[in-house]
Structure formats: structure tokens, C-alpha cells
């Protein structure tokens, strides 16, 4: 990679981190304004982990993100408009108003929709990786979970199965200190969650989850391991949930000193200082990026606000998929409209989770 390419890459990362933060800040505002009716879960302080982890992937790879992984979604090309339509429960949201939050996905672009039962996505990640292995692909699945989800049976079953089958999965644990109000001391009795890897016979490492370059290095190593056919790997990213579990949670169970300590380690501020010190981020470039971020968020909110609510007459619709041929995702011709899984057959239109041409926001 040339110096110029490296500089572009670093600014791209910075842009994604800023966009992630800005999208969530705006989401919070919409919630406080009463325009989002359901729960709002954000991830201030997780941007280095979510963006850094996803930046290690290539075309054909797949993410299995959770509720605080907006950064992963944006890096992989998920549409800010679609995200805002989800929050605002619009009829043209990826879930057509059936579900909210980041519970969205599009297999043709390698994004698996999550459910609220955290940990349950990990076995699903194994199934996606199983198909990659069967089809002799050199692609990988990046599946995330929090510290809380490591206590589920699904976590154990998935990591064990992935290892026995030598599946190309990278498990990223976002250890952010708390599962709702439960601190890690009540969640597990080991020093670091990366130690769990030993029991499954896979490599594991623990990394500063607020250092985006360190995250990229560690997850990059894990991805290379998985891609080479040696089986799964685990990376624990140590970060902190500086806000509540949801925006309705004041999180007064977290000591102000602890929160303050982590606020000083803010991943965006740290990366910004690094870029500035390296002479890669001028004041002017920074203003440009900020303006770009603002315009993308404004566009997403405006689009969602102008979008229609779902039609109540459709409340019992879409329970079963129609008959017809199904393509194996990622094979040539898999998006041919004759396949039931090529288009969103609920609407007869293409899936709308990913950024569309008219948005053109995903790259700097």
C-alpha cells in the first residue's frame, strides 16, 4: 500500500467512525423528541471496534452484527436511509415496520439480520460459514456479540461447532463492561474473555477496543486465520458502554469516575489525534468530513421522515415466503429475479437494506 493509499484508508476509517457517532447522536435526538417510539440502543465509544473489525473484510465476506454494531453496517454498505427508516418504523424500512432497530440484513451483501436474543446469531453465523466451506470459497464470516452474550448456551454451541467443523468464522466479543446493569464481574469469572478461545481450540486475543488500528490488526489476523482454512478465531475488544443500556437507562449503576475514565479514551478523539499528529487530517479536511457526515445524516432523516408508515391492512401479511426456485447466495446469477431470494418478494422490489445509488454515501 502506498503512502497516499494508506492516508485515504485512514481517512475513510475516520469518516465511518464519525458517521456512526453522528447517526447515533441524531437517533438519540429523534428519541428524545418522541419521534422514535421504541427502545433505542446506541454504542458511543464502540466505533473503533465496530468500524475497525468490519474494515478487515472483503467482498463476499459476511457480517453477523448485533444491536450496537452500526459501525459494521455502515462499513459494509448498509444504507443510512434504511437505518433511519427502521428507527422511525416506516413502511419502506427493510423490515417494512415489522421490526425496528438494526434488525436488518441482506444476504446478497453479506449482512445477517439479528434478533434480540443475543448470542443466538452465533450459530446462524456458523451456518453461513458452513456454506462458504461447502462451496470452497475463501470468504469469512465476522460475528459479534457482547460480554453478556458470552454467557449463553448459544455462544458455547456456536464456538464449539465452528471449531469442530473448522469453519471460517471470526468471533468478535465487544466487552463493554456491562450487560444492561450487570458488570462483567457478575458475568464471568476469568480475567479476559479471550481466554474462552483456549477451551474451543481456537486462537484468541484481547485488544484495546478503543484503538481502531489495534482492532484492525487483531481482527485482521483472525480473519487471515479463518480465510486460510484453519478454522475460527476469537478476538475480544475491550471497550466501554459510556451510555446506558438503552436511552431510557440513566446507568447510574456506573460510577462517574469509571465513565469519565473511558470518556477520556474516546476512540474517535484518539484516532483524530493520531491522524493530526501524522499530518493526515488538516483542519480543512476535517471540516469537509464533518460537512459530509452531516449531509448524509440529514439526508437519511429527511428521507425517513418523508417515508410512509406501514399500511395497517398488511398486518397479517408476509408470514410465509412464496414458492419458486432459490439461488445459492454468492453464486453467479444468484440475483436473477426469477429466484425467490433475489428480490424482496414481499414488495416485489430489490432488498432495500444496502445503500442505493442515489445515496452514494458509503465512500469518502
Amino acid at each position, binding site marked *: 500500500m502506498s503512502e497516499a493509499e494508506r492516508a485515504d484508508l485512514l481517512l475513510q476509517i475516520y469518516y465511518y467512525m464519525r458517521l456512526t457517532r453522528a447517526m447515533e447522536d441524531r437517533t438519540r435526538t429523534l428519541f428524545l423528541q418522541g419521534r422514535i417510539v421504541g427502545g433505542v440502543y446506541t454504542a458511543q465509544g464502540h466505533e473503533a471496534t465496530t468500524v475497525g473489525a468490519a474494515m478487515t473484510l472483503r467482498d463476499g465476506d459476511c457480517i453477523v452484527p448485533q444491536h450496537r454494531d452500526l459501525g459494521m453496517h455502515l462499513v459494509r454498505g448498509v444504507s443510512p436511509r434504511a437505518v433511519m427508516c427502521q428507527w422511525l418504523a416506516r413502511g419502506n424500512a427493510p423490515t417494512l415496520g415489522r421490526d425496528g432497530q438494526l*434488525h436488518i*440484513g441482506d444476504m446478497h451483501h453479506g449482512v445477517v439480520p439479528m434478533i*434480540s436474543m443475543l448470542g*443466538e446469531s*452465533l*450459530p446462524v453465523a456458523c451456518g453461513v460459514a458452513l456454506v462458504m466451506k461447502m462451496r470452497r470459497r475463501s470468504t469469512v464470516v465476522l460475528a459479534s456479540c457482547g460480554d453478556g452474550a458470552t454467557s449463553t448456551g448459544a455462544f458455547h454451541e456456536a464456538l464449539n461447532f465452528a471449531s469442530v467443523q473448522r469453519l471460517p468464522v471470526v468471533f468478535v466479543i465487544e466487552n463493554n463492561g456491562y450487560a444492561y446493569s450487570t458488570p462483567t464481574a457478575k458475568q464471568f469469572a476469568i480475567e479476559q474473555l479471550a481466554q474462552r478461545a483456549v477451551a474451543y481450540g481456537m486462537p484468541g486475543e484481547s485488544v484495546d477496543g478503543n484503538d481502531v488500528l489495534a482492532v484492525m490488526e487483531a481482527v485482521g489476523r483472525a480473519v487471515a486465520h479463518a480465510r486460510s482454512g484453519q478454522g475460527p478465531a476469537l478476538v475480544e475488544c475491550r471497550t466501554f458502554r459510556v451510555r446506558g443500556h438503552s436511552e431510557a437507562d440513566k446507568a447510574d449503576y456506573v460510577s462517574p469516575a469509571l465513565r469519565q475514565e473511558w470518556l477520556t479514551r474516546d476512540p474517535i478523539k484518539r484516532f483524530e489525534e493520531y491522524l493530526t499528529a501524522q499530518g493526515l487530517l488538516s483542519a480543512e479536511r476535517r471540516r469537509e468530513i464533518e460537512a459530509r457526515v452531516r449531509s448524509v445524516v440529514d439526508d437519511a432523516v429527511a428521507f425517513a421522515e418523508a417515508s410512509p408508515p406501514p399500511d395497517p391492512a398488511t398486518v397479517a401479511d408476509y408470514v410465509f415466503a412464496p414458492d419458486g426456485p432459490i439461488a445459492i447466495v454468492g453464486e453467479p446469477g444468484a440475483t436473477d429475479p426469477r*429466484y425467490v431470494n433475489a428480490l424482496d418478494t414481499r414488495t416485489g422490489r430489490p432488498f432495500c437494506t444496502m445503500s442505493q445509488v442515489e445515496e452514494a454515501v458509503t465512500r469518502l
Partner: protein
Amino acid sequence: MTAVTYLEAISQAIREEMRRDESVFLLGEDVGTYGGAFKVSAGFLEEFGPERVIDTPMSETAIIGSAVGAALMGMRPIAEMQYIDFITCGFDQIVNMACKMYWRSGIPLPLVIRGPAGGGTHGGPFHSASPEAWFFHTPGIKVVMPATTYDAKGLLKAAIRDNNPVLYLEHKLLYRLPELREELPSEDYVVPLGKAIIRRRGRHITMLTYGAMVHQCLKAAEQLATEDGLEVEVVDLRSLTPLDRETIKESVKRTNKVLIVHEDTLTGGVGAELAALLAEELFDYLDGPIMRVAAPDAPYPYAPPLEMAYLPGVERIVAVARQLAAY
């Protein structure tokens, strides 16, 4: 052509679908080297190899969850529960992950979960389950239960080709029952999901049933014909979801009396919904109370005298049918 068992019909369906479609594969505990606890997949590993006949760890959540992931990719996995009782260990993957997937994401999930259900084999409280009511109640999954060898093959093929999660409940008492041996068509066939069949025609009482209870009802119908001159119609539902409301209603409109028979426990069972449906839609046609024969509201017992008392059998069905006929 030789007559095959219900179990061989299941085996044939999977093997033929795996030969026909490279996206079909089987995963579960002991399905490969051992050929399955009941030998449904005997010889599959040799024919299809370890990537399409996957011996898994003892992990129902991983089995069903992986099947969901593979189905998201457009494959058609068949997830075997060694005994259907163990489906509870993977419940969340079914009711939250699989059942809501297409509805909320538009991504179809062509997935079959199958395994041996039902009692009569001295399996006790953890190897005799009839779990259909939980899934019958849950939107987003189709539920089928074949009673005959022909249907065992045809319904399974239809389930594998369906673009939705399908729970295929095979009754283990029927697996090797000699009287269910049947010569099957040599050509490819399916039994469509959502179509009931009238196994015996009659004009006095309709028996609505499915699975192994179809055979108990047929025996009861024969006895009632011989001893009482009653002409009982026996409707084998075959699919619980989708439910063939038309066939059910058409039959009841002719007989005006309904006896519902299932092996699952009584309260909140499939029969409760059938009764509600008929009470709502065919009230004017009914000449007697809608009656049910089912297992008592207790867990499935082990000791033979308890098991005999628990399972609905010909004697109880005949007794209740006589009450209904006399009404």
C-alpha cells in the same frame, strides 16, 4: 417393486432430494457414521460424503441455528432432532430466528426440522413427545405429520422443496410397522402441504385426526361399523399448518358430528383450535357437542400400565364416539 416401511419412505425422500438438488443436506447427531439413531440415514455418508451428511456435536441450538444460516444462503438444510423431544433445546432458533425471518427481512428460509415424535414405544417423558401444538401456535412455520408410508415420502419431499421452515414430525411407532408397508410409485411425487385426506368415508360422525392416531381412528371406525352400524368418516389432516379448513368443513357439514382425536395432551392442543374453528364457522351444522379424545393433561409416563392409560386408544375412541352418536 417391493413394499417399504414408513421409515424407508422417509429415507428415500431425503436420499432422492439430495440426489436431485445439491443444496439439500442433512445435519444432526449421529446421522453420518452411525446412520441415525433409527437408521433413517444409513448409507448416506458413503453416498454423499461428510459435507452433506454432517455429524454434529450434541448441540440442538447449533444444529438448528446452522441450518438457519445455511438456509439464509439459499441451501435447503434438513436438521434432524434425534428425538423430537430435544427440539426444546433449539426452541429459540425456531420460534424467534426462523419463524420471523421472512416476515421481517424478506429472506426466505427453506429449512426442514424433522425427528421421531410420539409415544407407544416405552420412551418415557423425554422420548415420547408430541410437540406439534407449540409450533401450530407459532406463525411462520409449517407443521406436518404423516400417517402413512406414501405420505411420509410425499410430505417430506414437499417439505424439502418448500421455501419456509417446516417441522416434519415422523411418528416413531410407525417406523417399522409391518401393516404400513406399502409399494410406492417409482416416479417422483409429492404430497402437497396443507391438504387433508379422507381415509374412510362415512355419514354419521367425522373424526379429525393425524399421525399415528389415524390408525386408531380407522380401527375404531371399523368396530363402530360392525358393532353399531355407525358410518364414521376419518379425516387425516396430514398438515396442521397450513390447515385444510375446506376439507374439514366439507366433511363436518355432511356428518354434523365431530370427534377430534390426537395423541398430544388435551388442553390448548390442536383439537382446541379445531373445535373453536368449527364452533365459529359451522355452529348451525352441528347436531352434537364437539368432542375430543386426547392424552390427559399430564407429562408422558414410562411404566406400561400408565402408558396404556395415557395414550388414546381404540377403546376410548369407540366409547366417546358412541356417546356422540347417541346425542
